[in-house]
């Protein structure tokens, strides 16, 4: 069964289209990254999943129900972009309050442990650092033991060390068979922490698959060698080639099919190829290629 089903969902703010006919299914139990630049429609999509925003048209289902019903049943937990705590309450009080609102919550001690808050449980929210506050917000998101966890750029305010442990904690929660969807504009986070990456740009899905599939689907390989005084004429006609650049005495050829390009380079030209280098696309190249304004 799908945890999430977007069916032709569009969200407009006046004339601005934030989400443009989004159709997307996410299987229960998977961990999916929504990867895209700012303004791609990631937050709008997450807020629609939570019933905080209504689609202009189209239909959203969460475990077969509308978003409002899914929220009422306690199926969803979320860590939204902004969100302060009540300053006068301790970590334990806040987490316990939220978890008791759910029909089938996790035990309090387990929530505190999973968010690494056991030692901070008695501290008031106004005495927490930024990174500690983020951990409490993660704890609030998982406290009810939701089947679906939504994280909207959860590591935005974290340093490197907190980020690493945050993703460890997230994976521990995912390992309990929960569905997780997180929005990010960090490619590395999407690559390392998800089993599926959905790249969105301008409110549409522009690529969908594992990080490896997305990398390979983009004409992002380069073949380069020392050209010396030879002419570069004809290189742009080789199979797979999309661009030719010359810098000093080196030529760099961008290609979607490096095997075919190299084969033709040796067999069908008379060029003297020296100091050859072949680079695969990384996710960043793929991302930039996919999300650039067309």
């Amino acid at each position, binding site marked *: 069964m799908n945890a999430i089903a977007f069916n032709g969902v569009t969200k407009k703010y006046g004339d601005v289209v934030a989400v443009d006919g989004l159709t997307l299914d996410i299987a229960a139990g998977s961990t999916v990254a929504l990867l895209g630049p700012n303004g791609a429609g990631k937050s709008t999509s997450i807020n629609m999943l939570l019933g905080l925003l*209504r689609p202009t048209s189209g239909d959203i289902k969460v475990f077969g129900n509308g978003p409002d019903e899914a929220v009422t*049943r306690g199926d969803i937990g979320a860590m939204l972009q902004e*969100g*302060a705590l009540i300053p006068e*309450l301790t970590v334990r009080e806040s987490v316990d309050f939220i978890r008791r609102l759910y029909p089938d919550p996790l035990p309090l001690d387990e929530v505190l442990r999973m968010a690494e808050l056991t030692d901070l449980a008695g501290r008031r929210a106004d005495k927490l650092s930024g990174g500690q506050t983020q951990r409490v917000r993660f704890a609030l998101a998982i406290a*009810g033991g939701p089947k679906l966890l939504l994280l909207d750029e959860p590591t935005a305010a974290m340093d490197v060390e907190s980020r690493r442990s945050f993703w460890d904690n997230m994976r521990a929660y995912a390992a309990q068979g929960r569905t997780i969807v997180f929005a990010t504009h960090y490619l590395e986070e999407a690559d390392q922490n998800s089993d599926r990456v959905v790249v969105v740009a301008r409110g549409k899905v522009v690529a969908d698959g594992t990080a490896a599939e997305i990398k390979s689907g983009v004409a992002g390989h380069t073949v380069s060698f020392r050209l010396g005084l030879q002419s570069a004429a004809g290189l742009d006609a080789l199979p797979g080639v999309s661009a030719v650049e010359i810098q000093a005495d080196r030529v760099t050829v961008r290609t979607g099919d490096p095997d075919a390009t190299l084969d033709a380079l040796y067999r069908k030209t008379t060029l003297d190829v020296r100091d050859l280098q072949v680079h695969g696309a990384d996710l960043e190249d793929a991302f930039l290629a996919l999300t650039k304004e067309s």
Partner: protein
Amino acid sequence: MSHYLKIELLRMVRNKRYIIFVVAFPVVFYLLYSNLWGDQVDETTGLKGAVVLMVSMAAYGALAASIMSSAVPWAQERHSGWLRQLQITPLPGWAIICTKLIASMVLVLPSLLLVGLAAVLTQGVSLPAGEWAGLIGSLWIGTIPFIALGLTIGSLLPPDTAQPVAMIGMFGLALLGGLWFPVEVMPSAMKSIAQVLPSYDYASIGWKIAAGDAPDASSVLGVVGWAVGLGALAVFAYRRATVRA
């Protein structure tokens, strides 16, 4: 929901502004004023100053508690994202405003009871049991229009505006309603303003009961009318603040 109420009460009790402005102020001013004017007797009602001031300061404390415990915390919660945090839990939307109302009503009680206790202990005020019950009961229920006003302010304004507006509303209602100075000594223009304010009707009910009389129907109607009007406004403002676009 009872746990939600507990949380709301806990946070306000830990809030210094609430403790100082709402719980300590009325008691301290009662002690001060009653030492100055406690022995004076009001000629029209025959009430001792110590009793009149008890009602005035209890009414002020209750008024302050109603507005301060509703407007600013609610504006802050909306602004800081805590409201969104609640909206994505199974807690139903109506439970939020109902809990706020009940919490504010509970938070009114300390100032009401402490001023009464100060009057009994320091000024030897004594009333028949029925009058105590009537006085405290009506001053308690009568805070509903002020809580509604506070929730309206909190729903419509951002926190940095809600704070001064709540303060001005609170002191304005207290001053013009005759809680700090008797309405009789005010210039006639202020007097006519006072008489349409809910705070004047509210305190008048208390003064009448403390004097052993039945409250004026006009005062009761005034408080009920304001409660209905501000209550409707509060519900409208709450819906507007929590609408899902």
